[in-house]
C-alpha cells in the first residue's frame, strides 16, 4: 500500500491544483477498497497487484492535465509564442534551421529504411501480410521452388494461407518496331495481379486459364513506364503484337503507374504468364521438372490469421510433398519470412540500421544546441518570467508557455525538414551503382514518414525545451528581480556547458563512425579480390533471342573469344556466366566428392560458374596447380572442372585435387586444375568453395563477355562492338560497363554509409563548434566586469586568456572523454559492416579526436581573444 500511495503522491503533482485534492481522495478510496477485496480473496501477491492497479494514476493524472489545457488558454500561449517567434527573426531562423537539419536528416533516413522494411514493393496492397517462401535443406534455407512443387503447394491450400504466387525475373529482348531493346520482366502465375492487389489501368490482367496449358497464351501486361517510354502512352498499344526473345506476344494490359513488379528495388516492365516459360527461356521446359528449382514464391497470410499460422500450414504441406516425392524432396522443408528479410532488404537493413542510429545522434546534437539557445534566451527573459510568477502565474503555466514556444520552433523546423527530406529521399538513387539489373528506389515521403517527422519534432520540442523551461521558471522570484549581473558560473552556466560537452561527445561518435566507414571504403578498393583485372570491359550477350541452339551457340562463343582477343588494345578475352562481386548469390549445387566422406548431415555445396577458354588469364586468376581450360575441353571430350584452393584444401586434404572426381545431378567431372582463392559475392566474405565448369561442356546462352584491355577501356570499346557485329550483326551487347563500374557494386553499401556518415559528422561538428563558440563568448561576456578589473589591476592578456580557456578546456575535454567511450561502443556495433578496418581502428579514433579538438580550440579562441582584448575601461563600463 505504501508503494501505491507513493506513486499516487508523485502523480498528484501532475494534476492541476484545482483537481488535486479530489484526485487523491478518489484514488485513496479506490485503493482502500481494492486492498480490502484482495485481503478477502487471500491473494498471495496482494502488494504487487495493488501496485499494478495503482499505475493507473499516471494516465489518469495526464488526462486531467490535458483536460485542464483548455483550447482558449492554449490559444493564448500560441499567440504569445508566435509574437516572440516573429519578433526575433535571427534567433528564430537559427533555431528553426538547426531543428530542420536534424529532423530533415532523420526523416530522410527513415524514409529509406521504412521503404525497405515495410513497403519494398510499390503499389502492392498489404505488404505486411506477404511472406517470401523458400525451400530448405538441412544446411540451407534460401532455395528456390520448382514449378510442380509450387502447383502442388498451391493446390493443397495450406492452412493460414490465403493464396500463393510464383514468379521469376527474366531479362528479355523486346522488338516492337525496329531496334531490339533490353527489358526486364517477370514470368508470373496468372493470379499475380489479384495476389498483389494490383489492377491494370488499361486492358486486363491474366485469366486463370492462362496458367494451365504450356505455350498456349502469348499475352503480356506491361508497366505504365514502358507504355509511356515505348508506346507513347497510346491506348492502342493494347492488342499490339510485339516480340519478346523472338516470340510474338500480344499486349493485353497496362499496370498502374508506379507498379514495378514483385521484386524489391527492381524496376520490371513486362509480365508474362508462367506457362510461356519454354518460349522465352532457354533449354527444355521447366514446367514439368520437379527437381529444377527456379521460382520465387510469395504467400499471402489469410485474413484473421498470423504469420505463425501460415508457417505451420506450409510446413504441413512441405511434409506431404516430401513423402509424396522423396526423390526430389527428401529433407526439403519450407521457410516463410517477411519480405524485408528476403532480397535487397537483408543486404540494406544492417547499413540503414547504423545510419538510423547515427542520424538520431544528429538530432540529439541539434536539440542540445537549441536547448543552449533557449537557455540564453531565457536568461534574457528572466525579468519577464519573474514578473509573471510574481503576479501569480503558476509554475506549470510558465513551463507550458515556454514549451509551446519551443513546440512552435520545432513545428517550423519540422515543416522545413520535411520539405528537405522529400527532396533528399531521392538521393539514395545517386548511390546505386551500374548493375546489370534496373535497380531504383522510389523518391518522396509517404504518410508513415510524415508521421515520423511529426512525432520526432514533438519529441525535439520537449527535449530541447523542457530543461530550459524548468530552469527559467524556478520560483526564486525575489532573487531574480534583484539580480542584475550573473557570474556565468552559476547553475545555468554549468547546464549550458554540459549541453555543449554532450554535443562534443556525440559529434565525436559521428565522426569516428564516418571515419571508420570512409577507411573501410578505401580499404575495400585496395583489397585483393582474387583477380587482377582492373582495366577492362564487361558486356552481356544472349544467344537465345538471336536464334542459336546449343551446338551453334558453343561454336559462336568460341569464335567470339577469338575475334575479340584479336582486337588491337585487347590483351585477352573470355566469357563467363557470372561476374564476381556482384552481390548476387549466383548458382550453386550439392555435389559429392570421390574419396571424401561427408560428415553426417553435411551437404557439400559448390557455387559454380560456367567460364570460357582464357577466363583465368583474362581475369588474372592464377592457376596454382594443373592447367586452365583450353581447346581440348570440347563438348564431346571428357568432362572437366577446376576448383579453388579452399575446395581443394577441404575435400582433398593431403591429396592432390587434380585428377579427383566430383559428382552431381547430371554426371561426373574430373578436376584438371586448382585456381587461386578469391572473393566471389562480397569483399568481406569468408573463404568459400568455388567450382568452374567450361561453357563448352555446360552450355548457357546468356553469358558475360570479359575483355582485358591494355589501356583505357573506353578507347577499345568501339572496336570490340565492331568485332561482335562482324561476327553476327543481330547480336547486341547489353549492359556494357567497365570493370571499374562493376567493382563499385561491391563497395556500394560502404559508399552509402561513408558518404552519409561523413555528412552527419560534418553537421554534428559544425553544430558543436557553434555551440562551443556561443558558450565561451557568453561566459566571457558575463565575466567582462571581472576581466576588466583583473586587467586594470595589472593582469596580462595571456593570463586572462588562460582564465577563459580553462573553463572551455574542461568542457571540451569532458566531451572528448565521454565521446571516445561512446565511440568505442559504437565501433563494436558496426564492426561487422566494415571491410579491412577494425571497429577500434586507432587511426579513426585518434584522428577524429585531434580534428575535433582543433575545431573546438578554434571555436573557443575567437571569443576568448575578443574578451581578453577588451580595454579595461570598456569592460567595466559594459553592462
Amino acid at each position: 500500500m505504501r508503494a501505491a500511495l507513493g506513486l499516487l503522491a508523485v502523480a498528484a503533482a501532475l494534476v492541476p491544483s484545482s483537481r488535486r485534492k479530489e484526485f487523491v481522495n478518489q484514488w485513496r478510496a479506490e485503493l482502500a477498497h481494492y486492498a480490502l477485496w484482495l485481503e478477502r480473496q487471500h491473494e498471495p501477491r496482494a502488494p504487487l497487484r495493488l501496485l499494478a492497479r495503482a499505475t493507473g494514476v499516471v494516465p489518469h493524472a495526464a488526462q486531467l492535465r490535458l483536460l485542464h489545457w483548455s483550447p482558449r488558454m492554449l490559444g493564448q500561449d500560441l499567440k504569445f509564442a508566435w509574437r516572440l517567434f516573429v519578433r526575433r527573426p535571427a534567433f528564430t531562423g537559427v533555431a528553426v534551421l538547426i531543428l530542420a537539419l536534424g529532423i530533415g536528416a532523420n526523416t530522410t533516413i527513415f524514409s529509406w529504411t521504412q521503404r525497405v522494411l515495410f513497403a519494398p514493393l510499390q503499389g502492392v496492397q498489404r505488404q505486411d501480410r506477404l511472406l517470401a517462401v523458400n525451400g530448405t535443406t538441412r544446411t540451407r534455407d534460401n532455395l528456390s521452388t520448382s514449378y510442380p512443387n509450387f502447383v502442388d503447394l498451391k493446390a493443397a491450400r495450406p492452412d493460414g494461407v490465403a493464396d500463393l504466387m510464383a514468379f521469376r525475373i527474366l531479362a528479355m529482348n523486346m522488338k516492337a518496331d525496329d531496334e531490339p531493346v533490353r527489358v526486364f520482366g517477370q514470368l508470373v502465375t496468372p493470379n499475380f495481379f489479384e495476389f498483389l492487389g494490383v489492377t491494370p489501368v488499361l486492358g486486363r490482367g491474366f485469366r486463370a486459364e492462362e496458367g494451365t496449358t504450356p505455350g498456349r497464351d502469348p499475352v503480356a501486361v506491361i508497366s505504365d513506364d514502358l507504355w509511356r517510354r515505348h508506346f507513347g502512352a497510346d491506348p492502342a498499344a493494347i492488342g499490339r503484337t510485339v516480340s519478346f526473345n523472338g516470340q510474338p506476344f500480344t499486349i493485353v494490359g497496362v499496370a498502374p503507374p508506379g507498379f514495378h513488379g514483385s521484386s524489391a528495388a527492381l524496376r520490371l516492365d513486362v509480365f508474362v504468364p508462367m506457362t510461356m516459360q519454354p518460349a522465352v527461356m532457354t533449354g527444355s521446359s521447366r514446367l514439368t521438372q520437379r527437381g529444377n528449382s527456379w521460382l520465387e514464391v510469395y504467400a499471402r497470410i489469410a485474413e484473421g490469421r498470423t504469420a505463425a499460422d501460415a508457417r505451420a500450414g506450409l510446413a504441413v504441406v512441405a511434409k506431404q510433398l516430401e513423402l509424396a516425392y522423396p526423390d526430389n524432396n527428401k529433407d526439403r522443408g519450407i521457410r516463410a519470412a517477411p519480405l524485408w528479410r528476403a532480397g535487397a532488404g537483408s543486404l540494406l537493413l544492417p547499413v540503414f540500421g547504423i545510419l538510423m542510429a547515427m542520424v538520431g545522434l544528429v538530432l540529439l546534437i541539434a536539440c542540445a544546441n537549441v536547448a543552449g539557445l533557449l537557455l540564453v534566451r531565457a536568461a534574457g527573459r528572466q525579468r519577464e518570467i519573474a514578473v509573471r510568477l510574481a503576479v501569480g502565474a503558476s509554475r506549470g503555466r510558465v513551463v507550458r508557455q515556454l514549451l509551446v514556444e519551443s513546440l512552435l520552433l520545432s513545428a517550423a523546423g519540422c515543416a522545413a525538414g520535411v520539405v528537405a527530406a522529400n527532396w533528399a529521399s531521392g538521393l539514395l538513387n545517386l548511390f546505386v551503382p551500374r548493375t546489370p539489373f534496373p535497380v531504383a528506389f522510389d523518391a518522396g515521403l509517404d504518410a508513415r514518414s510524415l508521421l515520423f517527422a511529426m512525432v520526432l519534432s514533438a519529441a525535439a520540442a520537449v527535449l530541447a525545451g523542457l530543461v530550459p523551461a524548468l530552469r527559467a521558471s524556478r520560483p526564486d522570484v525575489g532573487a531574480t528581480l534583484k539580480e542584475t549581473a550573473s557570474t556565468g558560473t552559476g547553475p545555468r552556466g554549468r547546464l549550458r556547458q554540459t549541453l555543449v560537452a554532450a554535443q562534443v561527445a556525440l559529434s565525436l561518435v559521428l565522426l569516428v563512425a564516418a571515419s571508420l566507414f570512409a577507411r573501410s571504403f578505401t580499404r575495400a578498393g585496395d583489397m585483393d579480390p582474387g583477380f587482377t583485372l582492373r582495366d577492362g570491359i564487361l558486356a552481356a550477350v544472349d544467344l537465345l533471342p538471336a536464334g542459336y541452339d546449343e551446338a551453334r551457340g558453343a561454336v559462336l562463343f568460341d569464335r567470339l573469344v577469338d575475334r575479340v582477343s584479336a582486337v588491337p588494345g585487347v590483351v585477352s578475352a573470355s566469357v563467363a556466366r557470372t561476374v564476381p562481386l556482384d552481390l548476387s548469390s549466383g548458382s550453386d549445387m550439392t555435389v559429392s566428392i570421390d574419396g571424401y566422406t561427408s560428415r553426417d548431415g553435411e551437404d557439400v555445396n559448390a557455387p559454380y560458374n560456367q567460364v570460357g577458354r582464357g577466363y583465368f588469364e583474362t581475369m588474372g586468376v592464377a592457376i596454382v596447380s594443373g592447367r586452365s581450360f583450353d581447346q581440348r575441353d570440347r563438348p564431346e571430350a571428357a568432362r572437366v572442372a577446376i576448383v579453388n584452393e579452399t575446395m581443394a584444401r577441404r575435400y582433398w586434404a593431403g591429396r592432390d585435387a587434380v585428377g579427383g572426381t566430383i559428382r552431381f545431378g547430371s554426371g561426373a567431372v574430373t578436376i584438371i586444375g586448382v585456381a587461386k582463392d578469391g572473393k566471389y559475392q562480397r569483399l568481406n566474405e569468408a573463404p568459400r568453395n568455388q567450382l568452374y565448369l567450361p561453357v563448352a561442356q555446360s552450355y548457357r546462352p546468356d553469358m558475360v563477355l570479359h575483355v582485358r584491355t591494355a589501356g583505357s577501356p573506353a578507347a577499345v570499346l568501339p572496336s570490340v562492338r565492331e568485332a561482335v557485329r562482324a561476327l553476327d550483326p543481330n547480336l547486341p551487347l547489353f549492359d556494357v560497363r567497365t570493370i571499374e563500374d562493376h567493382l563499385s557494386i561491391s563497395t556500394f553499401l560502404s559508399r552509402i554509409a561513408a558518404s552519409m556518415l561523413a555528412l552527419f559528422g560534418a553537421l554534428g561538428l559544425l553544430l558543436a563548434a557553434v555551440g562551443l563558440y556561443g558558450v565561451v563568448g557568453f561566459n566571457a561576456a558575463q565575466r567582462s566586469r571581472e576581466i576588466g578589473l583583473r586587467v586594470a589591476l595589472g593582469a596580462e592578456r595571456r593570463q586572462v586568456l588562460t582564465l577563459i580557456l580553462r573553463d572551455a578546456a574542461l568542457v571540451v575535454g569532458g566531451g572528448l572523454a565521454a565521446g571516445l567511450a561512446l565511440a568505442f561502443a559504437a565501433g563494436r556495433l558496426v564492426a561487422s559492416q566494415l571491410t579491412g578496418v577494425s571497429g577500434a581502428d586507432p587511426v579513426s579514433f585518434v584522428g577524429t579526436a585531434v580534428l575535433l579538438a582543433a575545431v573546438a580550440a578554434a571555436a573557443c579562441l575567437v571569443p576568448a581573444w575578443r574578451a581578453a582584448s577588451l580595454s579595461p575601461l570598456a569592460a567595466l563600463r559594459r553592462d
Partner: protein
Amino acid sequence: MLASNIALSYGAAAILHAVASGHRFGFDIMEATGLTSGTVYPALERLESRGLLKSRWEDEAAAHAEGRPARRYFTLTAPGATALTAALERYKALRPIPGLATGTS
C-alpha cells in the same frame, strides 16, 4: 447535442454499459469490463467532460460507517444514455439494457 454525435470507442461504450448496469465506481467498473486502471480512470474523466457521465461523492457518514473513505460515484446522464443506445447498435457484444432508451440510470 454534439457529444452524442461522436461515435464511442468500444472501451468507452463498455464503460458506459457498466455504469448503466449499476457499477458505479472505478474498481467496480474495472471488474465489470476487464479493462485496466490505466484505461478506465482517464476514460471516466473524458466521458464526464463530454457530459456523458456525471460524478458525485458518496456521503461521508455512510462511508465512515463502513470504515472506509468516501467513493466517487458515476452515473449516466441523458446524453450518455443516448450515446450508449447508439453504441449498442454498433457493438453487438454488449447486451442490451432494459429501460435504457428512456434515459433512466
